């Protein structure tokens, strides 16, 4: 009788632990991929307090003295699973690391020189926050009378995409050696950051407070 009872207790405990682990994992994932949107003046800005993209392999390469480029796309749509977004902005950021001062520098890369912006002497979170601050959608593009969803897709750019075996000077052994010596890099996988459904009125109220 006691044995049966203890087995029942054991099973119940295991079930609770498994459920707790699943909920925790979901909560962590939900929390990490959670995007916070706010209106700042005429622009919609986002932030992800629990998300860091300057980590892992990109951070290793930065600390080895290399520059790492990221491409970020912020979209607004009235449906959580959209094909064509209602509004969209794309930005490319080149991040570098000052080895001696242990600070980050970020440059927003753009085709138009007057829009090029950069900042230095930042901490890791500071650099990430600066990138998010430079990613904004104009208020006029947001749906006024309907709830909408905000989504941020961030990816690391692979430098290999931009160069092949054949360079400007043709094929050379040094060039081949350089290409075939490149380490096989697994691209850092970042979660898709989402927020919504949101309403423009709610965001305006938040701005007033």
């Amino acid at each position, binding site marked *: 009788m006691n044995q049966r009872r203890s087995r029942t207790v054991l099973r119940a405990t295991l079930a609770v632990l498994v459920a707790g682990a699943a909920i925790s994992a979901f909560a962590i994932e939900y929390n990490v991929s959670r995007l916070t949107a706010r209106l700042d003046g005429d622009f919609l800005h986002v932030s992800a307090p629990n998300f860091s993209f300057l980590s892992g392999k990109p951070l290793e390469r930065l600390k080895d*003295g290399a520059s790492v480029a990221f491409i970020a796309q912020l979209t607004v749509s009235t449906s959580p699973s959209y094909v064509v977004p209602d509004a969209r902005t794309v930005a490319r950021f080149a991040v570098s690391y000052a080895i*001696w001062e242990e600070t980050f520098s970020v440059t927003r890369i753009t085709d138009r020189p007057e829009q090029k912006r950069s900042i230095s002497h930042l901490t890791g979170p500071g650099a990430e926050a600066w990138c998010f601050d430079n990613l904004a959608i104009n208020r006029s593009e947001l749906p006024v009378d309907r709830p909408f969803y905000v989504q941020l897709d961030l990816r690391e750019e692979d430098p290999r995409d931009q160069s092949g075996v054949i360079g400007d000077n043709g094929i050379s052994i040094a060039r081949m050696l350089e290409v075939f010596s490149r380490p096989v890099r697994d691209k850092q996988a970042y979660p898709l950051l989402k927020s919504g459904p949101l309403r423009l009125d709610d965001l305006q109220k938040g701005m007033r407070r």
Partner: protein
Amino acid sequence: MTLRTRLALVFIAATLVPLGPTIWLTTNLFDRSLAPVDQLASVSRALEKTGRQYFQQASAQLKEDAQAGRELPLVFPGIAEAQPTTVEPAVLDAVREFRDSGEKELVTITGDGDSRIRYLVRGAPGDPVAVRVWERPLGIRMADLQREYSGARETVSRDLRHGYFVVWGLLVTVIWLVALGLVWIVSTRFSRPIVNLTEALRALAGGDFRIRVPNDRTDEIGLATQAFNLTATQLEQSRDRLVYLTQLASWQILARKMAHEVKNSLTPIRLTVEEMVARENDAAGTGRQAFLEQAASIVVDEIESLERRIRAFSEFSSEPPVCPETLDLATIVEERIAFLKTAHPEVGYVVEADADAPSAMADQDLVKGILVNLLENAAEAAGEGGRILARVIRMDDRVAIEVHDSGPGLSELARKSLFQPTISFKKRGMGLGLSIARKSALLSGGDILLISGELGGAGFRVILPAGPGPVAIDHPETGSAGAKHAIAANPGR
């Protein structure tokens, strides 16, 4: 396997066999040559640590000197109009950025090649929004250090072993394939003339004396080709000469024989005519009528003899159309012998036919002509009381007629020139009979062979193509169809 394929296989074997040691050697060399990369990894890490410590020490020293007042700052008041005018724009930008950052203090590297250290502090006595800036040389160019460090880390991060192997493998493969292609081309270039020469030799052996091999080479193969062409030319010329001489010899023999034969007939004619003239001048009337009749008979005989000879030559040169048909050879043999018995009743005849002897596929007139010739010869050779054996037998997929006689046989000279035209060893005849008979046999798709005579004399075998099936034999002498049988003619002789 062709010479070209052999050469290519030899090349592949000769180059692939040393591949194992080559890969082992290359791997070893790569590993040894890449050993400094590991050292570079540790050196770069040490450089990073040292550079950072150096910066931290310089930073701490500058802060300490600044706080102790051992070094005077450059002060940038909060009022925009009171900014120092002699400073570089870069310093002003740094101050502005520092103000915007909201930090209380900042130590940064600056200057040409990052060779200076700058310390910025927010606030000054009496001006909390002012920014004080201290700056001094670092003594080394930190940008150069960082560049070297980045380069070293870039090298370390690369998989040079993989890169070397891939590039090495690619280059070796490309070079090997190019070399194989060259070997293939060269071996083709070498083997092609040999193949051409072999084909030409085969054609030459087949009787094509006009074959020549095009040659534009001067090496050993070119010399061999040249020698072949010369040999072929000489052979062709020799063949032509031989043919001409053979033809000439044949015509000479023919002319000699014709002259002899014509002379043989003309001589008695001339003598007879002379005798007729002489008798005309003698006393006329005495036995004149009898003599004229005898003389006329001699002249007519000789003229007929000349006609026969001319007819024989004409038959020899003529080529009538061949009309093959299915023939029952035993019947034809019996028929020919029945005719022969009338002319030569003094000879005994025996005919045998194999029970499984097939029919023949040949021209009936030609076969009859052959048999007449052979049987006539046999009867003449056998003579009074002699015997002739005629036999029809199967020979694999052919059929043959054998004719044996009990005559004196053939001499060695006769055997050698038996089928040559115009040579006769008989008292009568032209010597063209056997030539015509063999020609008829050849035209029928067969041949005539001289074989060992079974009756002590000569023996001939006429081989002919077999017909579509065996012939059903039903002879009254044996009363059985398809059995081997014998027919006796004049059994008492």
